[in-house]
């Protein structure tokens, strides 16, 4: 007689939640994999299992494993396996023995069409049924099924409580179920099949045992048993499992990490919306780390990542915010100049510059002569992407009547750049601005690079340097901290995408998520030179710039007002927040700042370089 919370779950695709010490058991499911026997002592394993909320002792593992074997045989022999996929029976793998027995009992009961649940127990059609009789089922496990379509609650992420309850949503449709234990007695649940319709409508929920069932799918029949699932607890559990897996990886305990990883999949499926996507991406990144399948092509295909970034640009305001605030700072710095030169560290599609050129064109004294130097990565197919962008900008400039010059530089890394090759004119003649949107953090893999680049920037003698970076610390030395930070950061980002009002499936939304997913993969799975997404916080960048000899320039209230207005235009407008932080502007989602714009100029005391 086992546990309190026992839910039943359709076993076709979601049997990954098994943990068994014996190596011989395996689940013949889509994701089935053999559990390798752990060499850890039983005591430690017990604790770990308890931490994760599995109410099972490692001494019982052998028993469970044996039953799993039987189950596998049963599953394999049933050609009606597919009907399980459409079944809506839910199991709680937190109680493994009970779960297995439920599964077995269900198999035994399937051919039966008798609605009387008492017959379920005595229906021994296989030899495995001998295990059934050891259980004493109580029949009256009926409770109501609630379909809870409320908004997923991402508050689960910062939550620390590790709830022992765990529920799986097996249904293929996207309905989520609310599942809570009803009643307080300890009798286990009865696994009831949809087709059996053995629910007893006269049974009141208060008398039902704590073991509960979830039945999803069409709820047209009122006699169907009903269950409540608390998705917030699942969410907390999911986060907990992700963090535990990351910790296992950090401790080089790859077997345990592997075991935990397999739990994440079904947990993630039980969520909906942003949390599911975030968890899926993080799980994939963890898998890459565990199985050492490192992605190689993050930096190579820049046209692909540019396309993704364009969709991200259109879907949510982060990049637009970056462009508009940086442009405002540059505009103010160029107030009286008749010739201006902007050096863009990451030209990409040049989306930042039309707005600046238009603002310059409408300047009260008339537009200055505008020179743009764009820097970009080498293209795999040798097309000159920079020149194409330059040509488009030149067309625009001609349309609005601004004198325009363009020069493109291809560089593998910004550290390869020297100020001399940029053909700069003296500052009396030409006002220079350096602009970097999400580019500087790539230089942090080697310690000397960023200093070299900052030195080059100073050598350019700019009037203003505008920097936009992600507001997160994804560059710490400890993997687990990075993982934790990234989990929170990207959860907020995905949450804001959900709030963007785009009805899924929308291509923009999908591409934006893919764009972020690639970043997640890079932060979590890559190391060394491959890991380019080394974000640092504004405070860290401030320290760097201060010690490199730059003074901060305060972004004015104009920038703030424009930014606020821009955000108000977006569908999720009330979720976005613009904050001012010592002269820098930060855009965040609810309480979490996500990107930060800052402006700098070389310190006044610096002698001419």
């Amino acid at each position, binding site marked *: 007689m086992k546990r309190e919370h026992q839910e039943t779950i359709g076993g076709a695709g979601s049997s990954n939640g098994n943990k068994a010490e014996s190596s011989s058991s395996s689940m013949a499911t889509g994701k089935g994999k053999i559990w390798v026997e752990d060499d850890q002592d039983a005591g430690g394993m017990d604790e770990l299992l308890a931490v994760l909320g599995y109410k099972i002792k490692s001494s019982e593992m052998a028993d469970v494993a044996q039953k799993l074997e039987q189950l596998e045989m049963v599953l394999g022999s049933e050609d009606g396996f597919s009907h399980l996929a459409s079944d809506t029976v839910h199991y709680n793998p937190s109680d493994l023995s009970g779960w297995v027995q439920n599964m077995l009992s269900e198999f035994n009961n399937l051919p039966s069409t008798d609605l009387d649940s008492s017959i379920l127990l005595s229906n021994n059609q296989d030899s495995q049924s001998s295990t059934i009789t050891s259980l004493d089922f109580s029949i009256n496990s009926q409770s109501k099924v609630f379909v809870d379509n409320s908004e997923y609650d991402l508050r689960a992420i910062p939550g620390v409580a590790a709830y022992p309850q765990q529920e799986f949503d097996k249904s293929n449709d996207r309905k989520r179920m609310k599942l809570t234990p009803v009643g307080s007695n300890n009798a286990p649940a009865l696994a009831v099949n949809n087709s059996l319709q053995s629910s007893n409508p006269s049974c009141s929920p208060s008398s039902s045992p704590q073991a509960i069932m979830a039945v999803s799918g069409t709820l047209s029949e009122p006699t169907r048993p009903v269950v409540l699932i608390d998705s917030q607890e699942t969410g907390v559990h999911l986060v907990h499992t992700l963090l535990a897996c990351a910790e296992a990886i950090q401790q080089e305990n790859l077997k345990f990490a592997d075991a935990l990883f397999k739990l994440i999949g079904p947990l993630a499926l039980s969520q909906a919306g942003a949390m599911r996507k975030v968890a899926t991406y993080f799980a994939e990144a963890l898998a890459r780390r565990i199985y050492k399948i490192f992605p190689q092509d993050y930096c190579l295909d820049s046209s692909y990542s540019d396309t993704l970034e*364009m*969709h991200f*640009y*259109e*879907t949510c*305001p982060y990049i*637009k915010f970056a462009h*508009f605030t940086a*442009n405002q700072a540059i505009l103010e710095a160029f107030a009286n100049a008749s010739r201006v030169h902007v050096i863009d560290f990451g030209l990409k*599609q*040049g*989306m930042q510059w*039309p*707005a600046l*050129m*238009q*603002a310059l*064109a*409408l300047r*009260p004294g*008339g537009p200055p002569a505008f020179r743009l130097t764009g820097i970009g990565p080498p293209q795999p197919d040798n097309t000159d992407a920079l020149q*194409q962008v330059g040509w*488009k*900008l030149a*067309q*625009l400039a001609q*349309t*609005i*009547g601004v004198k325009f010059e363009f020069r493109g530089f291809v560089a593998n890394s910004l550290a390869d750049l020297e100020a001399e090759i940029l053909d700069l004119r003296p500052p009396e003649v030409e006002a220079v601005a350096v602009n970097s949107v999400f580019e500087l953090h790539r230089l942090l893999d080697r310690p000397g690079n960023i200093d070299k680049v900052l030195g080059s920037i100073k050598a350019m003698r700019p009037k203003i340097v505008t920097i936009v970076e992600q507001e997160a610390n994804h560059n710490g030395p400890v993997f687990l901290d990075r993982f934790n930070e990234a989990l929170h950061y990207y959860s907020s980002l995905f949450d804001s995408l959900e*709030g*963007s*009002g*785009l009805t899924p499936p929308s*291509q*923009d939304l999908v591409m934006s998520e893919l764009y972020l997913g690639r970043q997640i993969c890079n932060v979590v799975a890559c190391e060394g030179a491959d890991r380019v997404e080394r974000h640092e916080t504004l405070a860290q960048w401030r320290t760097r710039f201060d010690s490199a000899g730059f003074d901060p320039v305060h972004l004015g209230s*104009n920038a703030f*007002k*424009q930014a606020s*207005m*821009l955000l*108000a*235009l*977006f*569908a*999720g*407008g*009330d979720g976005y927040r613009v904050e001012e932080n010592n002269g820098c502007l930060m855009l965040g989602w609810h309480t979490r700042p996500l990107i930060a714009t800052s402006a700098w100029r070389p310190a006044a005391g610096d002698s001419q370089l």
Partner: protein
Amino acid sequence: MEGNVKEKRPKFCVNDHVDILMEILKRLDGRSLCVSACVCRLWCTIARNDSLWEHLCFRHASPPPSSGVRPVIVALGGYKRLYMVCVRPVLSRLGRLRIAGDSDRARKVWTRDGVQLSLSLFCVDYYERLGRLGGGGDASGGSSLMFLCKPVNV
């Protein structure tokens, strides 16, 4: 009664007086202007006149943008497009958020920042269209102003 009317028929048709018509149409809001363009061919031609839309765009802008704006806007696609693509959605979204007591009938007053923002977005839109015409974009290529078209979840 009918005989009286027949005698004193003034025979006034506003279509004969295009300037009066323009003055009237100048004071319409965007939707009515579009509706009026469907009345007859003359009205359609007049409603396409960009100066009407210019008036409509910056009617409530305070301070009104300088005259130097016009060549830029015309070059980027004209006031009608500016209104349709930028000004109308921006005004409606910002107006909805400004829940002041008297702005029910939307004397939506634009600040210079609002004007500037609309112009910037308009310029970005032009630039993106450039990209698409250049053969780089696909037919379903998104516009960066699509976010303005989506329904606002206020």
